[in-house]
């Protein structure tokens, strides 16, 4: 057992730390999403030029070939310094790894470089209005027409679809096959008439995600990834990658939030002192620190296990569940500390901390839904970790 970094890992961390300090572009613009996206594109290009985009990707595909620990270190450090997200986060975390794992040589040559540079943004077309947690029931159809496929249907919760060049699309190619077997994974060009996106306004007032409508949209045969009928297995790879990559960045992020929470507590009057002196708030703050630490240690244990077996296990679901709970608890506590002023939001003169906690409270409601609902994660844990019988 050794919870320290090796000298070479420390060296790597110092290198990451120094580079981020020197190149950090400052906070994201507060204007609209368009401004944020061009800011992130610029940032991603900078990352790419220094070799920090796609650090988990093998070197032959333009990545850094970093070890899992190095990936964890990079993610933790970037979050710690609150570096912006790269513009093409879905392409880097999911699209690229899928093409590398399942793509043809031609696909690798075509798609990987523009993912790394951020020149082409990717989005993920999985969920549908009637297929959320039960993803394999999806109905969007792809019908063969010569050497093309004609796609008709609707996707939803498609983050950054409005900026995307490519969509990782899972569609039904064989309506007669059992539901998991009739699916195919396509790379769909979003820039065509048959594809329409409509932003959905979230409870925060923002519009990160969209509905996407396909009406006889066309995908050439060469854009099938992993073979016709194999879409479910390919899609599962992306989801695994999503979870494995998120943990360490998320932990640093939540540690930063804990720091801000303590600051809020120290600056907020309560019971004749500050909230940081109030035994009730002290207990709650301590409990959050304890649970964040257990999440961090669980992630280390998971990483050790993954390094031994080569693949992330279903235990990753525990971390995602816990992260969602903690982000929600943390922002709920912040509003409780703010008391009556918690009623004021961004843009209000008397809003505490510029209304950041109100935003955080609202945004974190999605944490237990996005990327696998907590309820589904509990099913996964019950079935695959504990071996309990399936209801379905």
């Amino acid at each position, binding site marked *: 057992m050794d*919870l320290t970094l090796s000298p070479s890992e420390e060296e790597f961390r110092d290198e990451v730390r120094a580079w981020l300090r020197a190149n950090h572009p400052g906070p994201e613009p507060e204007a609209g999403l368009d401004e944020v996206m061009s800011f992130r594109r610029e940032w991603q290009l900078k990352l790419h030029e220094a070799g920090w985009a796609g650090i988990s990707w093998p070197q032959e595909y333009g990545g850094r070939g970093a070890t899992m620990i190095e990936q964890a270190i990079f993610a933790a450090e970037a979050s710690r310094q609150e570096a912006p997200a790269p513009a093409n986060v879905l392409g880097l975390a999911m699209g690229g790894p899928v093409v590398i794992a399942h793509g043809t040589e031609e696909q690798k040559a075509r798609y990987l470089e523009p993912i790394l540079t951020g020149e082409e943004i990717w989005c993920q077309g999985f969920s549908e209005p009637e297929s959320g947690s039960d993803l394999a029931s999806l109905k969007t159809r792809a019908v063969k027409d010569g050497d093309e496929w004609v796609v008709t249907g609707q996707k939803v919760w498609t983050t950054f679809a409005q900026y995307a060049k490519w969509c990782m699309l899972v569609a039904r190619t064989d309506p007669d096959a059992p539901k998991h077997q009739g699916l195919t994974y396509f790379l769909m060009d979003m820039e065509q008439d048959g594809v329409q996106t409509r932003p959905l306004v979230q409870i925060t007032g923002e519009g990160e995600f969209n509905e996407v409508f396909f009406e006889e949209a066309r995908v050439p045969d060469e854009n099938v990834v992993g073979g016709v009928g194999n879409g479910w297995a390919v899609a599962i790879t992306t989801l695994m990658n999503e979870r494995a990559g998120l943990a360490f960045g998320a932990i640093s992020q939540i540690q930063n939030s804990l720091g801000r929470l303590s600051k809020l507590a120290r600056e907020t009057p309560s019971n004749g002192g500050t909230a940081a002196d109030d035994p009730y708030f002290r207990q709650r703050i301590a409990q959050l620190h304890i649970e964040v630490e*257990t999440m961090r240690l669980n992630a280390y244990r998971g990483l050790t296990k993954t390094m031994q077996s080569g693949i992330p296990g279903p235990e990753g679901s525990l971390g995602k569940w816990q992260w969602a709970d903690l982000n929600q608890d943390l922002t709920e506590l912040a509003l409780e500390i703010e008391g009556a002023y918690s009623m004021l939001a961004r843009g209000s003169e008397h809003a505490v901390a510029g209304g950041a906690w109100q935003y955080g409270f609202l945004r974190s409601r999605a944490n237990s839904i996005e990327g696998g609902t907590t309820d589904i994660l509990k099913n996964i844990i019950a079935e695959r970790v504990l071996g*309990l019988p399936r209801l379905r």
Partner: protein
Amino acid sequence: MYFDLTDEQQAIKSTAHDFLASRFKSERIREIAAGASGFDENGWKEMAELGWAGLALPEEWGGQGLGTVELAVLFEEMGYALVPSPLLSNTIAGLAIAAGGNDEQRQRYLPQLASGELLATPALMDAGVPAEPGIFAMAAREDGDGVVLDGEKTLVMDAASADLFLVATADGRRHLVEQDAAGVTVVPEESIDLTRRLSSVRFEGVRVTSENTLPGSAETYFPPVFSRACVAIAAESTGVAQRALDFSVAYAKDRQQFGRPIGAYQAVSHRCAQMLLETENSRSAVYGAAWAADAEPESLPLAASMAKAYASDAGWRVPDAAIQVHGGIGFTWEHDLHFFLKRGRANAAMFGDAKWHRERVAEAVLARETAAANA
């Protein structure tokens, strides 16, 4: 970075697991729990032969010289098997003597503690004052070449089988008092945990010669011992939680209602998932703290409090959830679950409860963050 047991630690775990599973079946635990003293002499001898009594004591005093991680491994298995044993109290007393005793005291007691011939237990909390870590009321009255102790220690573990008490006094000292010393009376209490007996120990004009008082103030040597005691009992609670979870999963697969195993229903399976989350968190916190004890002592106090706070809650909540999963049978004396609930609940209150440790965590993290903000 490697957060898993080494092969050697894994070997300790499986040896302990197999030995305890074969020796401490339900019927045997019930026999010991129903006995007058709650002490199982044969079981203790066997554990001592395995080297457990001196596992973490220095080799030069007859121990095995192993670390806190190994101690946590062992106590997790002790909790899993719910063994009625003075191993915990004996270990803590031994660690305190190793940390704070002079060589003469170490030589006199540690080899015997390590071999299991002698049993020792800490007698820390005093009747009449808040039963919290660090609050001591008993006076040590100077008397010639030594002190005289008067007062009543409460909530003393395994006192009936103990040969030696490690007694705390309000002046910050620790004294070694043998059970047969004049003026010592053990008064057994009724503990909720039948597998770990608690007693009061009365001291009436008990003379302690200076050679039996540990030199110096306990503040200089006792905090790391206390932290390791917290890690050990938190490890035990983790084992308790794991066992309750295993019972529940097995039952949920087996028990049929409405034509299906109850584990297929989300009300049950999600409860089990929650139990797993709490058990795994508890385990991570325990081994993180155990590692800190051995490798990064400056972070031990915070890590130990985090582990003890978390495991205090999980150690009884998981068995509590297990009873719900089992329904009526879980509420019967006949089923073993209640022993686990009771041990978990008692462990939660020993060596500082979750609230006490959370306050220590708050103190540490708020100070750290204030320092960072001012830097």
